[in-house]
């Protein structure tokens, strides 16, 4: 029975000291640098003016009323509903009642939105620039090196992942090229950053991208018309079927305590 031929490549031990280690260290250091750069670039969230806060919280109040209406007795619920619905329909809680019914201004002309986009842009830049630089650095100095051998076998599908920049067909998949090592560290260093910087760091771009996937999850994004939200909520309240949780509570309690 023929053993599969084990490829042996004699590597210069200097490869480890002068390529593998520098790439790893540089990657970790850029992560840390990026974390602090992000902290410096972040500007404090903009404070809302009082009418805006009021508008937002008035909407939450309506939602609370709808969600928790069952704690109220029918009379007090009807009174509240009547008040909230009419206030919503009149636009009583709107931060700026004059612009009611007008179309929303172009978000590009709104300085607040622009600022938000600038912030996002800065974040992107802080990720892109170091990434490009390091990639270029590795390509320029270390391209084509096979720098390590994984201690476990892999299927050939991993070839493109582990041996980018080394164009050989017959090389065992276990050999890792320098460029691939760069990619591995790029995506795999999150636990290291967690250890160094704490779990809420902004060193890795993967988490950043995830956070960016749903930025406007807030209740009242800038692109939404608060008046529409209020009218919507008023409608929701109108059709709400009210059930009083205290109805028959005494019998429930007796049944519960005697059982």
């Amino acid at each position, binding site marked *: 029975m023929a053993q599969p031929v084990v490829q042996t490549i004699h590597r210069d031990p200097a490869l480890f000291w002068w390529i593998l280690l520098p790439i790893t260290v540089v990657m970790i250091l850029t992560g840390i640098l990026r974390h602090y750069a992000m902290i410096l670039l972040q500007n404090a969230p903009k404070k809302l003016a*009082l009418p805006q806060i009021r508008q937002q919280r008035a909407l939450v109040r309506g939602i609370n009323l709808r969600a928790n209406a069952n704690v109220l007795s029918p009379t007090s619920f009807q009174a509240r509903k009547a008040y909230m619905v009419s206030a919503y329909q009149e636009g009583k809680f709107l931060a700026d009642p004059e612009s009611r019914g007008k179309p929303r201004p172009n978000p590009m002309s709104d300085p607040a939105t622009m600022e938000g986009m600038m912030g996002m842009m800065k974040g992107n830049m802080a990720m892109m620039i170091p990434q490009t630089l390091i990639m270029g650095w590795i390509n320029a100095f270390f391209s084509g090196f096979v720098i390590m051998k994984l201690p476990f076998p892999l299927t050939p599908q991993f070839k493109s992942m582990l041996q980018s920049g080394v164009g050989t067909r017959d090389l065992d998949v276990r050999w890792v090229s320098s460029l691939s090592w760069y990619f591995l560290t790029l995506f795999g260093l999150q636990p290291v950053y967690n250890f160094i910087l704490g779990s809420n760091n902004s060193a890795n771009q993967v988490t950043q991208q995830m956070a960016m996937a749903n930025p406007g999850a807030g209740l009242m994004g800038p692109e939404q018309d608060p008046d529409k939200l209020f009218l919507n909520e008023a409608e929701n309240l109108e059709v709400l079927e009210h059930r009083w949780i205290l109805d028959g509570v005494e019998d429930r*309690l007796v049944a519960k305590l005697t059982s």
Partner: protein
Amino acid sequence: MAQANLLSPPSQIPPPVALQLSQKAPPILAAPPTSSLPWPLSLLFTRETPESWAIHENLFLASIRTGDDASARQILDRLTARFGEDNERIVTMHGIYEEALAKDDKALERIFEAYEKILRDDPTNFGVRKRRVAVLKSLGRTADAITALTVLVENSPIDAEAWAELSELYAGVGAWGQAIFSMEEVLLIMPNSWSAHAQVATLHYLSSPTSLPALSLALRHFARSVELNEYYLRGYYGLKLVAEKLIPLLSDSSSSNAKRNTDDDDVPPPNLASVKKLDELATSKLAEIVRQYGSGKKGWTGFDEAEVIAARELLDRK
């Protein structure tokens, strides 16, 4: 009782616990979380975590409460150095500190003026708004405090703390309708809070201790609070109190004018049999709590002593 810690102190801190908390000050003050090393090193050698600042804040409140003003000052300085003078919470904490040191109404008036000034500059600082209400309250200007609070809840209607405070102030001046309304707002924000249910019930009971609709509402809210928390002493106490008042009323109305109440009111009164049953159940539960508390049995000692005494007194009344 579970050991109180500074990171997540209980919502209600009795005096001995507050003292116990504030006595933890010296070790915390001796070990500042920020590093004293110069800048780049300080990043590496800091022991600062979000928790350490939460601990500082709670320690500050405990020290103020127990009269340890020197420690409070130190903590406040440390927090100010970390977060800056203009931070909303720091401004509020400065206010609390000044209030604690205020000797007389004159000093409080001055603090009030300062709050007014802060709010003119930044009307969104709700912490300072609340402190302003507190100062008005300690000055005895209840009407002004109520007005200030209504402005606050108008602008921030999802603030349970403010609604509860407003309810208490209204109850203090006997405006039961408004007090009940405010407390119901608290319920809307925290629908499963048994203490809020009990408070609504109490307000219903106090508003008209002899009318059938108010008493049945009170009974139901007390029943709900007990349903949510089976060991809620105050709920049982109220249940028993209200049930005892309701039984004669119900037996009267069932004989003479049973129809009338159900017609003009959308809340039918509870039936007599279940109220009697509830009365019995509450009595036995109260007796059990009083007995177990008296014997100091493990797991039964968490009740408030004053409440247990009141319960015993209620049981002995007959």
